[in-house]
Structure formats: C-alpha cells, structure tokens
C-alpha cells in the first residue's frame, strides 16, 4: 500500500502536465474560503492539535487532572453560594449536578475561546515564516480542548452516578449540543484571534468577556426563570442552547424548549460563518502585522 502511493508520487513528477501550478495575485476585499485547501492540510491540523494536547500539561504536577479540577471547584463554589446560600432554583435536580452539567460544556467553550483567541499571536513565528491555511491555528486550539472535555466529562458521569441519575434515552442528542458548543467556540475564537493580530486589546478583553458571558449563560441558574418570548430571545446567546441542551439530554429536565434551541443553533452557525469570512479577509495581512 505504502509503496503504491510513493510510485504514484513519482509518476506525478514525471508527467509535466500534472506539475502543480501556483498562481499568486493580489486579492482585495472578501476572498473565497478555500476550505478544500484546509482539507489538503489536514495532516498539519492533526499535528498542531496533537502538539497543543501534548504540551498543555507538560511540567505540571497534576497534569490532566486540571481538566477536572477547574469545573469541580467552580461547582463546589457555586453549590455553596448559589445553591445553599442564595437558594437558586435548579429545575428539581440536585444543585451540584445541575450546575456541573452546565459547567462542563461551558469550560470547554471558554477554554476553547481563550486558547483560540490567543492562538494566532502565540504562533507569530509560524505565521511569519511558513505558508499554510491560517484557519488551522485557531481550529487546532479549539480541537485540542476536546480531550479536556472528554476528561472532565468523566467527572459529570461520576456525579450522575453519585446522585443515581440515570441518563434518559435522549442523551443520544448530546453530540449535537457538543457540536454546537464547538461551533460557537470556533466562531468566536476566529473573530477574536483575527482581531487580536491587529488589536492587542483583545488579550485584555477575553477574561472579562468570558466572565460576563458565563453569567449571561444559565449555569448557576436555570433559564426557566424567563418565560415566553424572552426565553426564546435568550437563545440568541448560543451557549444558552448548549447548556440547557446538555441538561435536557443528560438530566431529563424540561428546560430545552424547541424555539430556544433553534435560535441558539442559528446564532452559533451565524457566528461561525461570519467568523470564517472575517478571518479569511484579515488573513492576508497577518504575516505583516503580527
């Protein structure tokens, strides 16, 4: 199999008409997405993601346990202050489990967002020295978070077992909600990473942004506190759909009304599409500005 593929490569070199032709012209304004090129560079995407994963917990004493510690401690703090002291309702679910089901996808989202928004600037040496589709950089930053998500998901499963909460059959929908979180994280990450190349203000904005966004997302409280049209409009924050979707799929709550999920899905896709176009438009100046 291997030798076959190398033979084919030699044949390509011999046949002059098949020599790849690269044309470089100045582009202006909005440019084509060239997603096919991204596919050609899938091996690089794989290696960059793999590098992120391998390097992330190097020289830390606790290693990948950090993926669990983050949501675990937030859960403890939230349970104490919001659950015990403020007596925030939790849709009939034990409060720690309720908030953890929101924290797990949220942590994936906020880490993905933070990593990808810094990704271009921290890969400045790559950008100014080698050509490859720049989309691979923020994409690999978000992708590498999937491993952390998988680890922290074990915590969620453990907590569900602790509270004897069997997942309903509709937990099969969970990947769809995870995908929504991924799309949103990548979409926002693309906007912010491209902006960050030119405006380093982004670096200081991201911690605030994630903090505000977290309180604008029903993690410590249920979205059922809102009613009717307001609840649907709340879905404009795509993470509302993700968090409530997670609870709906895993904990069997009735907190994911169709319209809200639909609004969130559309919002997340729009953020991503806008992000990709904006990214591609700014891409040509990255190497000069970064």
């Amino acid at each position, binding site marked *: 199999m291997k030798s076959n593929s190398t033979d084919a490569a030699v044949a390509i070199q011999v046949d002059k008409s098949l020599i790849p032709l690269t044309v470089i*012209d100045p582009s202006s304004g909005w440019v084509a997405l060239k997603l096919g090129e991204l596919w050609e560079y899938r*091996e*690089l995407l794989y290696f960059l993601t793999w*590098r992120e994963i391998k390097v992330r917990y190097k020289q830390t004493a606790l290693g990948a346990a950090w993926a669990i510690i983050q949501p675990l401690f937030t859960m403890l703090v939230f349970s104490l202050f919001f659950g015990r002291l403020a007596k925030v309702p939790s849709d009939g679910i034990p409060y720690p489990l309720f908030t953890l089901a929101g924290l797990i996808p949220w942590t994936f989202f906020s880490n993905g967002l933070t990593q990808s928004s810094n990704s271009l600037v921290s890969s400045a040496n*790559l950008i100014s020295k080698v050509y490859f589709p720049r989309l691979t950089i923020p994409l690999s930053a978000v992708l590498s978070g999937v491993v952390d998500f998988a680890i922290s998901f074990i915590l969620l499963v453990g907590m569900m077992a602790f509270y004897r909460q069997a997942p309903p059959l509709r937990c099969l929908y969970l990947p769809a909600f995870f995908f929504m979180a991924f799309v949103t994280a990548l979409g926002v990450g693309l906007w912010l990473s491209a902006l960050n190349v030119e*405006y380093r203000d982004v670096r200081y904005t991201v911690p605030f942004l994630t903090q505000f966004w977290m309180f604008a997302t029903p993690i410590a409280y249920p979205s059922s506190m809102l009613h009717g049209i307001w609840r649907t409009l709340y879905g404009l924050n795509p993470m509302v759909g993700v968090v409530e979707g997670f609870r709906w799929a895993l904990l069997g709550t009735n907190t994911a009304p169709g319209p809200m999920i639909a609004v969130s899905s559309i919002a997340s896709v729009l953020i991503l599409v806008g992000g990709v176009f904006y990214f591609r438009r700014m891409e040509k100046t990255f190497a000069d500005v970064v």
Partner: protein
Amino acid sequence: MSDIAIRVENLGKQYRIGALQKNGGHYTYKSLRDSIASAASAPFRAARALMGRDGSQANHDEDTIWALKDVSFDVKHGDIVGVIGRNGAGKSTLLKILSRITEPTTGHIEIRGRVGSLLEVGTGFHPELTGRDNVYLNGSILGMKNAEIAKNFDAIVAFAEVEKFIDTPVKHYSSGMYLRLAFAVAAHLQTEILLVDEVLAVGDAAFQRKCLGKMSEVASEGRTVFLVSHNLAAVENLCVSALWISSGRVTAQGSCSTVLSGYIQDSRGQDGRSNGLEQMRRSGNGRVKVTGCWFEDENGCMIQRAKSGEPVIVAIEFQAAPNTRNVDVGVSLSSLWDQMLFVHYSSYVGQYFSDLPARGVFRCVLVQQPLSPGDYQVGVRIVENASEADWPRGSVATLEIVQSDFYGTGHAGFSGQALLLLDSRWTLGNVTSSFHNMRS
C-alpha cells in the same frame, strides 16, 4: 515555455509605515483607541474594498513605502538563483511573497511545481517535545506528508547526529544539536522548488560546511533553488545565476559571477574607496602607518590592472616615527568574497627594515603572480619590533587582473570559477613505471 519554474511579473509590495513614524521609529501595535477615531470612515473603506477599489490606499504616499516595485524575472527549472542585495533591499519580502506568507500589492506570479520554503530552520519546534515529535511536527509544517517524514526519518536523524537523544525533549539539547536537527528536517524537504533564506548563516563552521554540502547536493539533483544570502561565497559556490535587488527593484540579473562582481564593485564604491584608509577601523601603536597603496609595473609605472602571470609591484606608502627597528611588512591578497589567497610578510624571505625615513614607500614585487582574471583585494599589516604598528581592517586597494596568454599556448585556461592559474608539466607513463617510482 514549460521550462519556466517561477515567473514574476511587475511584482510590487507596499507597506504602511504610518505607525512607525508617529512613534519615533518604534513600531507599535495598533490599539483599539487609535482606530475608534477613524471608525466612522471604516464602513466606507470596507465598502470601497468590497467594490474592489483597494488601490485608493496608494494615494497616501507619505504613509507607505514600496518594499518591492516593478520586479519581474523568470527562473528556469533546475536553476540555482542567488538573490543578493543590502539589508532592507527587499530580498526577504520577495521570498515571503513567493512562499505565499504575505500577499503582493500588485503583480502576478506563476510557480510550476511543489514549493518548499525555508525561511528559518526549526519553525514550530516546541522545546517541551522530543526530537522525534519535533521532526514530525516541523516536517508537517514545512509541507511534508506524514509518510514522507516516516520514510526519511532515519536519514534525518543520522544527518543531525542526534540518534542518542531523539527521545529527549529538545529543550535539553545543546544549541548545536538543536540547529542540526532543525536543518536536517529542512534538508530532506523533497520539493521541486526550494526557497531558502539565510539558512546557511547558522551554526559553527563545521556545520555550515555540512549545510553547504547538502545545498550543493540539492542543487545537483536538478531542483530549482532560490537562495537569499549575505554569504557571497556561498552564493558564488552554489548558484548558477543571480538576482541583485536594491531599493525594491531588480538592479541586475544574469550569470552569478557577473552580477556578483557588479554588486561588489557597487558596494565598494559606496563605501568610498579613496578615503577608505582614513576611515578604516585599524589597530596598532602607529609607529609606522600605512598612508596609501597602489600597483606598479616593472618599469615603475602606476597601473590599475595587470595580466595574469605578469609581475606586479605592490607599493605601500607609509609614514614612520624615528628610530624604528625590525620593521616587518605583510601583504595579503583575497578574493572579492573575502577568501584569503595568501599572506606574505617580508620576514618570510628574511627581510626586515630599520631606521625608516619619516615618509617612504615599501615595494613588494609579486613575481609571476598566478591569479586568474578578476578583482582582488589587498590587505596590509606592519609590525615593528615584534609589536603591531598598523593594521587597517579592510581592503586598501583593489587589483584587477585581466586575461593573458598565461600558459603561452593561446589557451585562456579554465573558464569556470577558480582563483589560481598554475603552470605545470605533463608526462605520459605506463602503470608499472609509476608503481616503481612509488616504491623507491
């Protein structure tokens, strides 16, 4: 037509330098605050860009510079092109555009063949990862396929001589090992077209030799190489043709030796040949000082050029303090790319001078100089009583050697690059007689 590997037409690259001027030469990142002021006009700019009228930027000439302008050239398949020019001439910009890192502002480029660009060795190396991991990572960043890296892995490790440490994180590597591994990956890039920038300017002398060796190996494989370098000797050795860029424009393109000597002549002219001695960095106690240097023929006439094989007299004018003892005068000759040909002190032939006059001239007769046609630089150093009196660091004069009937046979000699001509006698013998001579 199809033998053209790279075709560049009217290439131009404009950079904005507005931010640079505002902040007293320090480049600063644009901050949001700066842009909010002009935010109102941004939608209109965006709209203009949408309509494809980006060129309107060109009106603000005071804020922009053309790093490259009207650059056109062709590179044939299998050609090894050296790109030379001063710092800031636009060489690196050209390379960045060709490797698609940055976009041109104007112009059109066609490249036939897979392109590999080496603007730096070890791009993407991560200190925490092992040598093995970094080879794969760096390889894929340079555009190699996974299978390709796996196939070349052993060769890469062997070339870098880091077999023992391949599973050690590269942060524990010595800088030499790190560079060797980084270059080794790059050297195994199997693309038809290779764009290389200053890669040779790293590492110790032994490693540089190895890199140069690898580069000439690559060159001999019939691949197209586009090499940007300050190392003129490397360009001279490796390249067939050269491209000279100054101030963003192509000044000359053609055979390597022609372009190179033009470039060297030009840079010497700008450095100021006539007042060179006064401004040259020099060391020594100054008891004897070089004040001038020129060439004479056998009749004592001042000459600018000499024929190969003809005697040349190097005249060194000096001023000296009283009561000088054991003065030893040294003359050196080197090629234009600083390759030293010989160093010759008067003491080598048993000659010292004492009680020099306040002003005078040393004359050194180069009997039957064996130089091939070209330009040579002369260096001078004077030692008095075993301590250095004067050493101007640089060329005090340039000797031009022109072609002559050196061998007396009408044959001009080797037409390629070789610095020396040697006279010789040839005989023909049979195998047993030479064997016999070796024995005895």
